[in-house]
């Protein structure tokens, strides 16, 4: 399915006017003759479709052209190519913050009384969803051993059963996935124990992926036993009807990414962008987003005690620093990439 969408996206990309950033998918919601709001987003089209369809239903005069691209491609499109969109949505908080800090975002004043203060920056960057980052596992791998409840338990389980998990552990490749690097930086900052986990995963010849979706697909196909740091919204699609898929409770801490939106300064239809933003922050849209991801941004404090939402805050700017990134990746590489590790797929 995903490959199909990707293929459709590629075809559409080929038909669209010349642009150099790569898009993954493109879809129109609402009547084609309506005022079209251009949205550039990292969020999986299928996962976001109910929300966009609901908007189109509530606003008959408007349509949304939803363009899905990776966070690095979005960064390139906005900062370097001057692509014009009415709204930019991304889960890569550091890149979003960088774009806003560098002056690509317009100010807005949507009605959002429930939005927690840490989920917005100035009046320019607005959190629209909370995406917990989880560890998933196949039930078959944990039939005879207890399901780990913390990272420490996970390290112990991996160490104790090297044969079982050899080559069957996966995580993001931070060198190519923006989200992967961001999560790595967060793990580095939150916990010293993470590096022990990285060492263990490296010894188990961990597989490296570009995307959450691919990891979950391979986990469901039985090629993987444990996937570390996947965005929960992808998993939520399968979990109810896949009895084999279990979520390892990260009771020590569960990072949660704030998916955020901003309105570019050079938007072709600023009013349309504001309308969509107000809708996304409204209770009905938040209810739909919560149904898809399982976590509410506006009521996150009540969700789980270990949930640690990453704040939208100027500190995020440090992650895009070249030297810092280089240093962190070098350290990660030393810990995780053993001489026999195959390249990321």
């Amino acid at each position: 399915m995903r490959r199909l969408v990707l293929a459709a996206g590629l075809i559409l990309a080929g038909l669209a006017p010349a642009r150099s950033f790569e898009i993954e998918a493109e879809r129109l919601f609402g009547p084609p003759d309506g005022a079209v709001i251009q949205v550039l987003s990292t969020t999986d089209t299928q996962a976001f479709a109910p929300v966009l369809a609901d908007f189109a239903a509530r606003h008959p005069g408007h349509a949304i052209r939803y363009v899905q691209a990776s966070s690095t491609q979005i960064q390139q499109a906005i900062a370097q190519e001057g692509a014009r969109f009415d709204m930019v949505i991304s889960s890569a908080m550091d890149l979003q913050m960088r774009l806003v800090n560098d002056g690509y975002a317009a100010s807005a004043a949507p009605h959002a009384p429930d939005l927690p203060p840490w989920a917005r920056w100035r009046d320019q960057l607005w959190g629209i969803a909370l995406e917990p980052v989880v560890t998933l596992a196949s039930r078959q791998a944990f039939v005879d051993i207890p399901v780990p409840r913390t990272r420490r338990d996970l390290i112990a389980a991996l160490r104790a059963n090297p044969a079982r998990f050899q080559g069957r552990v996966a995580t993001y490749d931070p060198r190519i996935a923006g989200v992967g690097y961001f999560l790595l930086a967060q793990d580095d900052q939150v916990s010293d124990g993470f590096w022990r986990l990285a060492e263990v995963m490296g010894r188990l010849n961990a597989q490296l992926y570009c995307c959450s979706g691919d990891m979950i697909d391979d986990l469901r196909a039985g090629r993987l036993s444990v996937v570390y740091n996947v965005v929960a919204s992808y998993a939520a699609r399968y979990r109810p009807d896949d009895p084999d898929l279990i979520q390892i409770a990260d009771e020590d801490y569960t990072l949660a990414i704030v998916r955020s939106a901003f309105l570019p300064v050079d938007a072709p239809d600023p009013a349309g962008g504001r309308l969509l933003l107000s809708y996304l922050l409204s209770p009905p849209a938040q209810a739909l987003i919560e149904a898809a991801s399982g976590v509410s941004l506006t009521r996150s404090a009540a969700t789980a005690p270990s949930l640690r939402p990453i704040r939208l805050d100027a500190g995020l700017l440090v992650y895009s620093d070249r030297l810092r990134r280089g240093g962190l990746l070098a350290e990660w590489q030393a810990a995780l990439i053993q001489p026999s590790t195959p390249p990321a797929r």
Partner: protein
Amino acid sequence: MTPRALRRWLEPARLRSLRRRLVWQFLVLSALLVAGLFLTVGWVAERASRASQDAVLGAAVTAIAEGIRSVDEGLEMDLPYATFSMLGAMGDERIFYAVTVGGQVVTGYEGLPPPPDVPDGVAPVFWRADYQGAALRLASVARPMLIDQRLSQVTVSLGQTRQGQAAIARETALGATWVALAFLALALPVALLAAQAVLAPVQRLAEVVSARGPRDLSPVRHPAPRELAPLLRALNGLIARLRAALELAETFIFEAAHRIRTPLSLVRTEAELALSETTDPATRARLRRMVRAINESSRSASQILDHAMVMYRSDQFDAGPVDLSVLTGSVLRAIRPLAEMRDITIVARGLDSACPVVADERMLEIALRNILDNAVKYSDADGRITLDLAHQGREAVLTLADEGRGLQGDPSRLLDRFHRGANVGDVAGSGLGLTIVAEVAAAHRGRFRLTPRDTGGTCAVLSLPLA
């Protein structure tokens, strides 16, 4: 604002009330004060918040610089998350930074302007620049470092927008202004009271001056604030000059009347002698008219003399105990021959009991003579005049009723100087007689009034307070 313009603002010509002027001045000066406060507090708050934010910015840039290490591959830097987070927390500011080695940007924002002065020493330098359409406050530090066996200058620049700081300064200044305005609102009634209090002595002085009798030309001796002393001195000087002028005029009149009276009596005696010596009827008639005219002039001169006397004595009031019944009796004796000449009967009542008053005897005598003289003059021959002296409450009341021609027109106008009734006919008079009576009454805080009688004739009433 020039001092002249300020003065025009403070003392607008249209404000004629001193109190309004004071309040207006208070308001204008206060408005200036509030504006000054707004600017001053804004400036101070701006400086204070800039100083504190500069301290944070300086600490942040120092922290970044200290996180830079020289390693084999070049530079290693641990950009501290907390530092950026803290910087951003002070009002959601945008943040830009750059690390340069020998002028080449190693990491951070390309094109961030370099510091105007190369920072030296440990302390950061602060400066301002525009970058990406934002006004930045920047701090830079430089550290010499051994990179690839060469000593290079590593410069770290960290900049932030200062929208929050400007907003804080503005809000602080606005807050101070509101407080000042509130104080002003409270102070306004106080200012009104103060203006009232300042002007109260002026008011009191005005009351004292206007409460004086019409003939009171004594110097004003009222305790007044030092600022009013010149006014008081000027007023008293004016009064003194006025009194001198009046005294001069009255002395002149007195002198003139006196000097005219004596030759007039001489001329009358001569005319009467000539009348008795001639038998020619035409000459006799002429001489009689002459005597009559001389009598008239003599009488007028004597009344002018009386009037001048009364005026003079009103100023230099020389009061003493007088028995009104005795005085009335003596005046009555003097006037009786004149009445008898025209067969007028004067009936006096109430003169046998004492009637003590405090009065200037000479003035009172003049008044009584004029009042009686008037009654006799306007009574018909064979007429009857009733004089009645009685006590009424705390007053002695002298009533004189005649059966003469009565009054025509407003009786009170007859008391005006040189004003005579419309029905005087051929009776000679100066129009001063009743004026003199009224002035004497006023000087003694008494009253004098004329009323027509129901049976014809006039009733003249003189009331004086009893001793």
